[in-house]
Every structure is written in C-alpha cells, then in structure tokens.
C-alpha cells in the first residue's frame, strides 16, 4: 500500500514535518514512513599537503580514508536513529497509532532515495530548509526545489508552527497543471470537510470565468464547501499572498512546475516564488 513519507533530519523543520505528517496520516489513513537519509556530502578534511608518495601510500591512504568515513558514518547513524526515535515520539503524541509508523534509514542521496520509493509514495512531507540552512529563516533548502522538480508525487512543504488547516486555498488558472491539481484535490480524502477557497488571479479574468465556475461545480460535487474569488490584478503572486493573509488561509494548494523550463527562466517560476515567499504550508501537486 502506498505510504506517506516524512523526511526527517536534525533541523528545526523536523518538528513541523512531524506535525504535518501526523495530520496527513489521520486524513488519509495511510501508513507513515519516517525517512532519514545519510547523505555523503562532505569529506574528511584532514588533507596532507606534503605531496609525496612512498611505498604503500595507496594502501595506507585507503585505510585512513575508510577509517575516517567509518567514524563519521557511525556517528551520523547513531544521531539519525535518535532523530527518528524522537520523530516517532512526536508523531505518536499527535495521535497516530504506532502500528502505522515505520522508520527507514538509508545511505544515499535524498533525491535518489525518494525516486527509488516514488512508486510507493502517496504524499511526501518535507521542511522548507534542512540542516544546512538552519540559521537563515526564509532560505529554501538546497534539496527542496530539486526534490519538487524530480518527484512526480504530491509534496507537502511544512513550515514553522504547522497546525491542521481550517481553510485551504486552491490557486487556479485553468491550465492543465491546475486542472490536474483540482481533480486530485476533489478525489483525495486529504481535505475532506475543510472549506475551500478557489482563487483565480491575473488580468482579464472574464474569459476564464466559465472555467472557474466549472471547477467550483466539480469541487462542490465532491462535497466541498467552496468560496470562489477573482483577483483582478497585475501582480498575481502578491495578490495571492495578500488573499491568504486576509482570509486567514492556512494551506496553499497549487499545481507545480506547470510551465516549460524556458518560460520559467524568462518569467520566473510561480512555484519557485511560492516556495520562497509563502507564509503558510504549501501542497504542490503534479
């Protein structure tokens, strides 16, 4: 059965990931896997600048490097186990039954591990920034954009003080990606019983009014309480964020990376911008 995968590391974001994945687990009633990946990013830095090689240097060097790697890995493994244990405790505290939780540690790169488990993934929960960016509060972790671009599964980006959403907003522009996102929201039990704000922003919206109405009908058909809004403005992004604040929306749902790479390069990507600037948790659908 497909799982919710929660990416746990030693950063501040881990606690948000725990609460967010506990909420998602209770909505979806799917097994939850707590994942910690032991990435090999930095190297033992005991460089020896003597620049000479003698008999058996290769063998000694190999021994030495393996020893350093081994020490570091053992420490990280231990630390990772502790983090996963802590995460499990938090998730159980948030009301998830412990039979539903499993833990996994892997030696790999995060993206590669996630790709390997992709067929089995229902929802991925990640923090906005990892261990490397703990000090900068609005930075986006180096993994996040990479993961969201590579993985073709829904990704929930948890932010500080995550709480169960009371209203969520679906950003809709009538595009293929947006329609796909709409369909996923309508069919998934994730947002059952939570009021939906279906929002369209941009210039000359009257053309797309019919599409918006259709989308509303579709969601209402699926049993949602829908409020629609049209934000007739030049600055789509700012308008959306302003709406979020005004209406006290606590989760933003959107189709991700809908446009071609070239257009993203020229005009900037909506998804990229939202990842950086959103004040509420994001659910990216592909």
């Amino acid at each position, binding site marked *: 059965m497909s799982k919710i995968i929660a990416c746990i590391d030693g950063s501040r974001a881990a606690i948000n990931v725990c609460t967010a994945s506990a909420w998602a687990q209770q909505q979806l009633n799917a097994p939850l896997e707590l994942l910690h990946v032991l990435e*090999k*990013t*930095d*190297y033992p*830095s*005991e*460089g*020896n*600048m*003597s*620049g*000479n*090689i*003698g*008999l*058996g*240097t*290769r*063998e000694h*060097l*190999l021994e030495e*490097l*393996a020893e350093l*790697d081994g020490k570091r890995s053992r420490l990280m493994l231990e630390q990772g186990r502790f983090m996963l244990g802590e995460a499990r405790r938090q998730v159980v505290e948030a009301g998830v039954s412990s039979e539903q939780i499993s833990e996994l540690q892997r030696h790999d790169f995060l*993206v590669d591990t996630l790709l390997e488990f992709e067929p089995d993934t229902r929802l991925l929960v990640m923090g906005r920034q990892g261990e490397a960016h703990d000090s900068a509060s609005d930075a986006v972790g*180096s993994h996040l954009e*990479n993961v969201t671009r590579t993985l073709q599964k829904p990704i929930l980006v948890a932010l500080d003080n995550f709480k169960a959403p009371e209203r969520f907003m679906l950003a809709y522009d009538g595009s293929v990606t947006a329609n796909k996102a709409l369909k996923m929201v309508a069919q998934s039990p994730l947002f059952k019983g939570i009021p939906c704000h279906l929002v369209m922003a941009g210039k000359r919206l009257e053309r797309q009014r019919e599409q918006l109405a259709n989308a509303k009908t579709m969601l209402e058909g699926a049993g949602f309480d829908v409020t629609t809004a049209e934000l007739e403005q030049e600055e789509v992004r700012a308008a959306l964020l302003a709406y979020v604040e005004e209406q006290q929306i606590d989760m933003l749902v959107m189709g991700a990376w809908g446009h071609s790479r070239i257009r993203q390069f020229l005009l900037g990507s909506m998804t990229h911008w939202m990842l950086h600037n959103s004040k509420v948790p994001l659910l990216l659908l592909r």
Partner: protein
Amino acid sequence: MLQKIKQDWFSNIRNDLLAGTVVALALIPEAIAFSIIAGVDPKVGLYASFCIAVIIAFVGGRPGMISAATGAMALLMVTLVKEHGLQYLLAATLLTGVIQILAGFLKLGDLMRFVSRSVVTGFVNALAILIFMAQLPELTNVTWHVYAMTAAGLGIIYLFPYVPVLGKNLPSPLVCIISMTAVAMIFGLDIRTVGDMGELPDTLPIFLWPEVPLNLETLMIILPYSLGLAVVGLLESLMTANIVDELTDTSSDRNRECKGQGIANIGSGLLGGMAGCAMIGQSIINVKSGGRGRLSTFVAGLFLIILVVFLDEWISQIPMAALVAVMIMVSIGTFSWASIRDLKKHPMSTNVVMIATVAVVVATHNLAIGVFVGVLLASLFFANKVGQHMAIRSHKDDASATRTYIVVGQVFFTSAEKFITSFDFKEALDKVVIDLSQAHFWDITAVGSLDKVVLKFRREGVEVDVIGLNEASRTIVDKQAIHNKPEAVEKFMSGH
C-alpha cells in the same frame, strides 16, 4: 543536473584549491621529465599537462582524478619523435584523441571488466619500473655531485614531512627542488639543468595545426602509434579511475572518461602538446591532499601554466638531479608494495599473470602489449580452473546390461578431452544412457566431443540414449536474454 555540477565542482572548494596547487607543483617536474623521455622540448609536456588537466576537469568522467602528460604515453612516442619529428607527434596526438572518443561512443570502457586485478597490479608495477628506468640515463656518466644531489633530494622528500608544522603544509618535492636549485646556483655547480634539455614555455600555448602532409602516407605513419597511445591512455585512465573510486568511495562514468580523454588529447595536440592520460601517482597525491572535485584538476592545470610562464627563467635552473629525485619518488609511490608482500599469499596463477605483465612491459616498453598478455594469461588460467569443475559418475544395471553416465559441471574446450576420456568404451554393454541434465555445454567443442562419444559407443554396438541435451546446451547461445524463451533456443539450435 545543476545539483550534479555543484556537487562535482563546488562541494569541496577549499581543499580542492589547496590540493590542486600541490598537484600543480608536482606536475611541473613530471611534465618536464616525461618530455625528456619522449625526446621533445620540456614545453611540449608542460603545454600538454596544462591543456589536458584543464580540459579533463570539464569533460572527464571521474572528478578529482589528475590527467596530464604521462610516462606511459611518452615511452610510446620515442621512435615516432626520433624518426619523424615533433609535427608528426602532434598529428598522432590528434588521432589518438579521435580514437579515444570513438572508444567512448562504442562503450569500450566497459571492457575494463576483463582486466583482472593482477593485470592492473602488473601494469602499475611495470609503469613504476619504466619511470625508474627512464631516470637512469641521468645517473650514468655523471660526476659525484649528481649522485649526492639525488640522494639529498630523496632525503628531503621523505624526511621533510616529519618537520613539525611546516612538514604537513609544504609539499616536500617542492622543498627538494627549491633547495637543490639554490645549492646548484650558489656553488655554481656544472651539472645538467632543465634549461639544457630544450625550450621552456614563455607564453601561453597558441593554436596550431600540425604541419604534416594530409595524406595516406602520414596516416600510415601515425596510426600504429595513435592506436597504442589510445589503448595505453584509456587503460591507465580507467585503472586510475578505479583507484580513485576506491579511495573516495564514489563511482565514475567510464565511457564519459574515455570521450573526455579523447577531447583532452585533441585539445593538447592543437595547442602544441603531446598525448597524455590519467596519472596514478598524481591522482593519489591529489586525494591525499584532500582534493575530490573537478575544481582540483582545473586548478592544477591552471596553476601549472601560470607558474611555468612566469618562472621560466628559474625553472631552467633546476638541476636534473632534483627532477630525478622527484621521479624516483613517483616511481616508488606508484609501485604496489603490497603485491610483493602478498606474492606468497596469492595463488600461483595470479602471481604468474602479474609477473608476466611486468616482464612483457619491461621488455617491450609498451604497456598495451603487457596488458594484452596479462589478460590472455588470466583468461587461460580461468578457463583451466573452470574446466576442472566437471565430473562424471556412472552406475550399471546388470540385468539390462545398461550403464548410466551422469555428467555434472562445465563442459567446454578445456574440459572436452577429460569429458571424452571419462567414458569407458571397452566395457561390453547393450545400452548406455548419458544424462546431461546437470551439465552445461558452453561451446561447439563440447557438442563435438559428445558426438564423438556417441559415435564411439555406436561403433561398439552399444545403443546410446542422451538425456537433457537441450538444457545442457542452452548456454551455447551467446545472448543470455534468449535463454528465457525455450522456443528461441530450439530455433537457434536447429540452425546448427
């Protein structure tokens, strides 16, 4: 993609910069020494080292590996340079690059799996011996000053790292070269210096097309050299890549490395450099100094050319004795000491392969021939070993005068003879059953020997029943994929 580039280039900036500098300093004496081996001006080797290191940093398949002008390649060029001159060497370098790129596209890098560990060890040891032997001309018919300087140089190289603080932060080969040069200049010793060996670079390399007639005759001259250079270059590069893989616990892209070596050699040839490849010794120095990323290779090349262009006056003063000391260090460091220590532990066949590889290389001065002999010997030993995995049991049913032979194991060219002699044709029987369902027939020789056995029995008037031939001969089919489809195998077999 972007992540990968970042990981390859900028994940280890500080260490890569430092290690690249250390490597650049060690590359200079090597590039000069290898130019002298090849019989060209030192600037040819120095330009080559710069071009190859910088280009391979971008296009290579193994981050952190150092490629430049090498001794293995230099040894192959000697006669070409002697008989036809530098321009033909540049043309041969271009052709080498083209052949290597082709090899990359044909995915010949995957063939490295046929080169066993003992062949690799033999290659490395042979290379070390060749580098050492190439230093001998500098040590014959010279004054005692040269011996003294070489000995002092070696002393500095190996003892300086034990000096507290400084020892671990200053490359000892550099200390050796600087102090030996100072001694020679101060005492005004009349000994050979780098400047005596030919022209040093005083400008950046410039683009030039080799001045050779573009005709079939030229091609026939350079092709044999280019083939040898391409093979040796790829062999050493892929072996070095394996060593770096092992040291850093990461993996490399072999076919990209093949193409990269080709592009680097073309670049070198067009800028007046000789052909080169990856260097085992320098790559180990790089890893030891903390270098892991592409940046370390790039810095090594760039720093080398900066040093050489600005310091050419000083470099020409370096006594050859100091270079010899550095090269002896490289040869000692390249030699696999463990292979001598483990001679007793390893099986005889492994030792024979290793020693044969070394012996052939030392005799021919061509690493490609040595590797070829090594691989051939290793395959023969392997075939012989696997051939021993065949046994034939039999039991006789007296009532019906029937004997059943049960063949277990691998039947192919080395075990076919044993297969035939395992049957007793002299026994008076009515019927023989040969059960092959637990055997594997690997080639036509095996099938032929079965035919022979059946024929012999029939001549004795014995009725022969062969069981399980289909299962046993499935292994003859070259492509494993066909095995899963029984009808395809039958179709294949019926064609024979």
